[in-house]
């Protein structure tokens, strides 16, 4: 009954929890409770089964060959390890997730570049004290008065004053 499987990797649940975005917290909690249940079940089972005292049985049981036969068959028996069907799927999922994560990071970087450009524009603006109306219209195009559409002062509908 030997056969050790791949050792279970220690997971830092605290660090993991920090990285979970708030909208996925419930999924994370479900995963954690499931994992904890599985780990508890595993811990409750002893690693090696109870050893059978063959000599005691040999003395006690009257039938002559029975104990020997059992003992022989028992030691010859090997229990097959359960087949792992899911790990390959998980690896595939992980590869997929890596792909989409890279794509997301690219998009995120593009967004950051955009934001930084806008931020620079705001940071390098002339202070309002030294601006003229033309400078204001350049910096904030929405303040430009449409003198063609509304040729008379105040160049905008009264309702917008």
């Amino acid at each position, binding site marked *: 009954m030997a056969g050790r499987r791949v050792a279970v990797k220690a997971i830092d649940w605290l660090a993991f929890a920090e990285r979970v975005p708030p909208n996925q917290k419930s999924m994370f909690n479900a995963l954690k409770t499931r994992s904890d249940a599985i780990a508890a079940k595993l811990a409750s089972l002893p690693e090696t089964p109870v050893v059978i005292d063959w000599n005691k049985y040999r003395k006690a049981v009257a039938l002559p060959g029975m104990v020997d036969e059992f003992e022989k068959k028992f030691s010859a028996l090997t*229990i097959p*390890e359960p087949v792992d069907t899911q790990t390959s799927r998980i690896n595939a999922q992980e590869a997929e997730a890596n792909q989409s994560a890279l794509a997301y990071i690219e998009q995120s970087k593009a967004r950051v570049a955009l934001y930084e450009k806008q931020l620079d524009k705001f940071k390098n603006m002339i202070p309002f004290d030294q601006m003229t109306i033309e400078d204001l219209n350049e910096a904030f195009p929405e303040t430009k008065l449409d003198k063609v559409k509304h040729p008379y002062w105040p160049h905008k509908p009264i309702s917008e004053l």
Partner: protein
Amino acid sequence: MLSRLVFASANALKGSGPLGAGLVQASRSLHTSSQSLAPLPPLPETGGKVRHGIFPEELFQLLYPKTGVTGPYMLGTGLLVYLLSKELYVINHETFVAASIGAVFIYVVKKFGPSVAAYADKINEEKVAKAQEVKDQAIASYTQDIEDEKKEQWRVEGRSMLFDAKRNNVAMLLETNYRERLHMVTNEVKRRLDYQIALQDLHRRMEQEHMVNWVEKNVIGSITPQQEKQSIAKCITDLKALAKATQVKATT
């Protein structure tokens, strides 16, 4: 000229906003063509210095080296006297009208100028403050957004932990299954052997009891009536002897 009057007497005009901008722009647009790319220097904070509200300081500075401090005043007085005496300026009723209007105007400007200037400044400052708020908010929101994006990128880095957890779960389930099978086999074998032993014990017990019952029955059956009477008589004599013995013991 009029702008200088307002500037000097008010003494409180801080931001030369749209008012100054409009007037100065008129002069600047004369000099700058649409191809000029150099950024304009900032507008001056206050207008040119004047004395007595009308006369520019530059005149006094101009005449100072030659005539000293009283030079421009002498020039002014001399000009005035010359105009009056030669009747180049004739005093008529218009003079009094002009004088009264001038007096009233100067009084009003001196009295209410600062407050009007403050009011105009307040309006301007409100506009500027609003614009500044918009700008500050925009800067804050962009900085926040950049932070959030960086945080999200950091979060994404932790994705391997999820898959580690999943693989762990799978491994643990497999291990549990394997151990359960082991235990099941051992327990089944043990149960069968224990059953055999229990069966044997049962057999022996039953045989024992049966044997005992049979022997008892036979013994009881073999006691003949004659033997019974004999044994009862013996018992009675034994009892009598015992009674005598105890009586003797009691008296001594």
